[in-house]
């Protein structure tokens, strides 16, 4: 049986990490002051549906005569709700039933008197309703039938009609802190007799990124795939992560810089089955942490999310400048977005080599193109590319996917030597494209069929004029 389902909270007190929600709803039940509509907002797997179902049981539990924060879980009403077979508790997913007809038939159903004390309508992914559907629902919320409780759940509240939001009591479900997740996992591991170290739990919890469901799922997988005690290594292997030692050794190689070691590390990772996107996904939080620790030191210890310890991170930060870290982070972020290369091994190499301070070939968050650090010999005058280059560029454009052609045409090739392509264009175009250099490089590689590493540099027009 899977852990998230088995350990679905049964009463409000079981819902962890959402103190405001649970206190307000507990009081509402005790005071029998239940609103006719609630809106639950929050990331995936933080307790929205669970809380909605608890509320349904709480108002209908037959062991109690009135709403209770502690539904018994064994009366007919409770059991049917838990099984999902209760007639008066309707759970619909607006992502797949988003039309006005579905909402109308729901509303019709709602107008009948329920058999249970209260009918409860749980509308998941409420932001997916079409606007007609939302307006139909609004009418009902404006004059709610007294015996019906609406609970809208959404991950994206800003996509809901403001008039719908106004009618609901809104509860924000927070992303859960790694320590909160780890504590819950630890309690469950005890009950399930899963042998796992504290550090391993924290690693799992971090990987869950604020969602309890993901945390539980990982714990379940870890217990199935490991005999004996589960340690950090097992968790890392399970999540397809990269062990901290290897991460550290790469960063050291980057710092030295030891190009060969960077290259062999990349190869080893790929050979051991790491996917390129996984490599980036490990490096990203590491550089984020480095940047935070560099900026704020000890006091951001609790915000660390990578596998490295504060001590290690702190030691490393002395060797980077903030600017370098900024650049690398932006670069990794772009790399993540532009993944999909047909030469993944090259893509990873380029990406890792670009982390070496001073080697980066593309600008960062700053939208202003970086000064060119690679020597180049422009073969043109006054910014007007000479014929052969223009021809070469045309060939590349023609071979590019149709979608890319218009924006490639806005660039001009200034020089091209040993795989280093210098491009220019007006400032806005450069600003826009500076983030896409990796894509452009891929395109060129594809057209020329060249195995050579392609490096793109963007030059602002005034620099081309000057040279």
């Amino acid at each position: 049986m899977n852990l998230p389902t088995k350990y679905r909270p049964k009463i409000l007190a079981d819902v962890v990490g959402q103190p405001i929600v649970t206190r307000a709803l507990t009081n509402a039940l005790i005071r029998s002051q239940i609103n006719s509509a609630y809106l639950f907002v929050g990331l995936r797997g933080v307790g929205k549906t669970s809380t909605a179902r608890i509320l349904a049981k709480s108002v209908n539990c037959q062991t109690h005569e009135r709403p209770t924060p502690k539904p018994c879980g064994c009366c007919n009403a409770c059991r049917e709700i838990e099984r999902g077979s209760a007639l008066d508790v309707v759970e619909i997913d607006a992502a797949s039933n988003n039309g006005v007809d579905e909402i109308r038939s729901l509303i019709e159903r709602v107008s009948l008197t329920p058999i249970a004390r209260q009918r409860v309508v749980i509308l998941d992914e409420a932001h997916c309703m079409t606007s007609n559907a939302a307006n139909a629902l609004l009418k009902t919320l404006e004059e709610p039938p007294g015996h019906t409780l609406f609970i809208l759940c959404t991950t994206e509240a800003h996509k809901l009609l403001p008039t719908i939001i106004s009618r609901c009591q809104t509860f924000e479900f927070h992303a859960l802190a790694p320590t909160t997740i780890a504590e819950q996992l630890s309690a469950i591991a005890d009950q399930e007799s899963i042998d796992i170290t504290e550090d391993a739990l924290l690693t799992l919890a971090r990987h869950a990124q604020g969602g309890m469901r993901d945390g539980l799922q990982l714990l379940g997988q870890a217990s199935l795939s490991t005999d004996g005690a589960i340690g950090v290594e097992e968790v890392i292997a399970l999540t397809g992560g990269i062990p901290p030692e290897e991460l550290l050794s790469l960063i050291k190689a980057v710092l030295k810089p030891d190009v060969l070691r960077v290259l062999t590390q990349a190869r080893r990772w790929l050979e051991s089955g790491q996917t390129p996107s996984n490599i980036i996904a490990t490096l990203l939080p590491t550089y984020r942490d480095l940047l935070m620790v560099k900026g704020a030191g000890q006091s951001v210890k609790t915000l660390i999310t990578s596998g490295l310890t504060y001590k290690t991170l702190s030691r490393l930060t002395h060797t980077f400048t903030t600017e370098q870290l900024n650049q690398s982070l932006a670069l990794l972020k772009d790399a993540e977005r532009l993944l999909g290369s047909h030469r993944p091994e090259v893509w990873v190499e380029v990406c890792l080599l670009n982390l070496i301070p001073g080697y980066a070939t593309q600008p960062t968050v700053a939208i202003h193109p970086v000064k060119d650090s690679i020597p180049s010999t422009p073969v043109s005058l006054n910014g007007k590319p000479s014929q052969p280059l223009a021809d070469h560029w045309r060939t590349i454009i023609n071979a590019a996917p149709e979608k890319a052609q218009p924006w490639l045409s806005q660039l001009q090739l200034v020089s091209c030597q040993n795989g280093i392509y210098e491009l220019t264009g007006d400032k806005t175009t450069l600003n826009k494209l500076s983030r896409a250099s990796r894509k452009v490089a891929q395109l060129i590689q594809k057209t020329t069929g060249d195995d050579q590493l392609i490096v793109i540099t963007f030059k602002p027009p005034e620099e081309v004029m000057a040279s």
Partner: protein
Amino acid sequence: MSLLVLLGDDSHVIAQYLNHHKAQLNPNWLNFNLHRYSAEQIQTAITTARTPPVMDTQRLVIVTDCPFKSWSMEQLADIDQLPDSTTLALIGQTLDKRAKVAKYLAAQGMTMLTYERPKAWDAQGIECMVSGIARRQRLKLPKGAISYLAEALGNDTCRMEAELVKLSVYANGRSLSLSAVQQVILNQTHSSLKLAEAMRQGRTAAALHQLQALLAANHPLMVITSTLLTQFRTWLWVKAALQAGIHDNQTLAQHCQMSNPKRMYYLKQEVKGLRLSSLVQAQQKLFDCLEAIKYQGQDALLTTILSISQRIDRQ
């Protein structure tokens, strides 16, 4: 009989008023004694209103969206013959007291009530509503909470009511601290301003913790970033004007397009130690960041916050 004329744009309060009336009807016979008509059906509405209630002592007839201006007295002629048991509620936006129809309705003994929402910029009006609802909910609020809530909830009375009920249920009769109020009722602007404040003071760690809290509570990146931009822009304008020798609060407020000159006092304090050039840079960085978050998500904001709060040079 009673003749009610309910005017104004606050449909929420009007609905509540009517609900109050509805609650006095016998719930088992609502289908016979509670009626809702649109303005075109005014004749039918009056006819219904003239018939005595069924199995009850009262009847409530509601007519919505009444265009009083275009109505003639003939249309409303039979209103004077309503039985005592009927309440006829005519709902519309406005009614000019000098118009013939108005005089006629007044002669029939109408009770006219107007419910206008406070305007969005009318902080005092909104605060008044907040404290009114809070009193009704028996909500004990700490100092500063009313103005915080007014800002967080705005002039949407429906939402205001829902959220204040939530707050009072949360409090459950106990008194709350201001920070508890702020945790239960989120105000995106307010929380982002706390972040701006930390950045301005160069308290990098505090800024990062605040960012983390904002993200955990589902504040959209775009909202955080634009609020930061607005705040830093304000500081930039104030600083620039001060350096140009403008010190008088009134003139300063005009230059900075601030509606409230009293705020200038605080703004002046806030920009005191800051260098104009670092504010110029901060504005630029936040502006770029608005674009960058589309591609790089929260990392772009993280980088921007770090670089501003670390380089916010003090003179």
